[in-house]
């Protein structure tokens, strides 16, 4: 009896140590990656990165301006395409579909799309935008990013709208408001913190996505705001510069990686803050 007890105790202690070790491993890698990104990224930062464009190889110049602007344009365009679709889709689920079989099927499919590999979406955008139009474009890149973002926004909108208390809706209807006014002026407004969280999480997801842009927006060594041609962007620039043997390019790759990580972190923190402001029903 004693030996069984002792064995169980040993197993328990050993397993606790292993669990702790597993967690330590996870945290260790996190710190290693963040630390190297900070270390190399900050040492690669220059004022020029924001004022000059990407330099050709073999020079000792620095510049990422066209990539920053290009990435911001891609993000903005993805928002313009993705937020309306995601918002309306989530609204349909919460306000019209409820728990009908169709609505649950849509939720199921949406969840599957949530974990779609980004390269798959890149191929899709290539097939429906680049191949028919015959050239790479910022527009194609935004389509790919929007498709990646929509499932997140649909899901959070659906969940956040469902959380809105029924009394608010009923009060609005009692005042004679038509359905669409109830939804837009009351329900959306009440859930705006949560919906915004979804948008921010979606943005964080698509920042730094490289694979879909490889087949759609490609890259551009010059400054360009043209939506119908290749556009410079941070992730593809990081890809190109990191695999090169030039010291200044590698430094810039780290600086760009650092800025991307910071951007995503800020977005996540702001999203989390907004989530804290979501009103949960009593």
């Amino acid at each position, binding site marked *: 009896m004693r030996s069984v007890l002792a064995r169980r105790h040993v197993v328990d202690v050993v397993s606790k140590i292993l669990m702790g070790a597993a967690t330590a491993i996870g945290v260790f890698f996190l710190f290693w990656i963040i630390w190297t990104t900070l270390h190399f990224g900050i040492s690669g930062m220059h004022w020029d990165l924001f004022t000059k464009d990407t330099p050709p190889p073999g020079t000792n110049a620095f510049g990422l301006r066209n990539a920053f602007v290009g990435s911001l*344009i891609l993000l903005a365009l993805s928002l313009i395409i993705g937020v309306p679709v995601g918002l309306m889709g989530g609204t349909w689920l919460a306000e019209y579909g409820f728990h009908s079989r169709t609505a649950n099927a849509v939720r199921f499919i949406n969840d599957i799309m949530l974990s779609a590999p980004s390269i798959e979406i890149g191929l899709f955008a290539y097939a429906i935008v680049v191949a028919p139009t015959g050239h790479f474009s910022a527009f194609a890149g935004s389509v790919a990013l929007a498709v990646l973002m929509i499932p997140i926004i649909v899901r959070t909108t659906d969940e956040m709208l469902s959380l809105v208390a029924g009394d608010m809706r009923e009060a609005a209807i009692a005042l004679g408001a038509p359905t669409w006014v109830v939804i837009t002026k009351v329900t959306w407004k009440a859930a705006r913190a949560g919906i915004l969280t979804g948008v921010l999480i979606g943005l964080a997801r698509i920042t730094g996505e490289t694979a879909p842009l490889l087949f759609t927006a490609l890259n551009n060594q010059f400054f360009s705001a043209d939506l119908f041609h290749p556009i410079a962007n941070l992730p593809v620039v990081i890809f190109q510069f990191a695999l090169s043997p030039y010291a200044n390019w590698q430094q810039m790759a780290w600086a760009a990686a650092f800025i991307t990580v910071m951007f995503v972190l800020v977005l996540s923190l702001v999203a989390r803050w907004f989530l804290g402001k979501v009103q949960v029903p009593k």
Partner: protein
Amino acid sequence: MKRFAVITLFAMALATVFSTGDSKAATSLTGAGSTWVYPLVAKWSAEYQKLTGTEINYQSIGSGGGIAQIKAGTVAFGASDMPLKPEDLKAAGLIQFPTAVAGAAMGYNIPGVKPGELILSGPVVADIYLGKIKKWNDPALTKLNPDLKLPDMAITVVHRSDGSGTTFTFTDYLCKVSPEWKEKIGENTSVAWPTGVGGKGSEGVASYVQRIPGSIGYVEYAYLLETHEAYSRMINSDGKVVSPSLKGFQDAAGHVDFTKAQDFYVILTDKPGPETWPISGCTWQILRKNAPKETNMEVMKFFDWGFEHGQNMAESIAFGPLPPSTVQAIKNYWKTELGYGL
């Protein structure tokens, strides 16, 4: 309602601002292809943009990519170090012309061996890439380098993972010096490599060689100059030990006559001569015959400027300029093939 209208107007205004593209004062062209020629085109286009405002946006995605993109019409010009055969050009409605002469060298990373110390020969390189010679202290290597202390280290072969004209030039050379390579592997922009790691672009290969001890890779010479990596000397077809150099590439070019070759289809590897570099090559620009006239004119203007004014820049990164007779032949070719010229 009013707010909605305002937002729509604003959005339309934004849309018009962003989609102007070509209506700006500066013209902009996209070219894509060979990483071999990228250092040259990048230097030329940076200078050209300062002088004329025209932007030449070049994506170095490999010669295979350049050929694919120009065939699909998604770029204004495609750059390839593998010349297309005249029948292929005709079938696809394309024309090609040479840009400059350069060479590829074997970069290596062997602890204890300094740049330029290693000597290789064509058959030995073929055997390394076939996977038959696996270690640096293999007898075949020590025979060529009796004075060097080569370590007992595995050779990591680095090749291109993307479609590359540099690969074409390199494998063409290997076919000439190794019957086994010719039979088993052949030559093209992308081949079934029996062994090794694949780097993306010449930059990728140079980068891997920098990082992996015991590695060897074929890289366009300008990249090795930029990164100050070690590169080996080679035994050329005359049996002399030569270093890669601008003169070595130009000596190879001296043995061909561009003006007599149809569609400028020439191969520069393994040419005779005491100082000729064995892995020399040329690089071509490919245009579509039925592209808009303005596009082709802009491309021709850019390269014509490069031929006239860009020679010093080219030579500074070991790209050999074409002789004036060839440049004149190119201009005539444009006129005859396209129906218009500069």
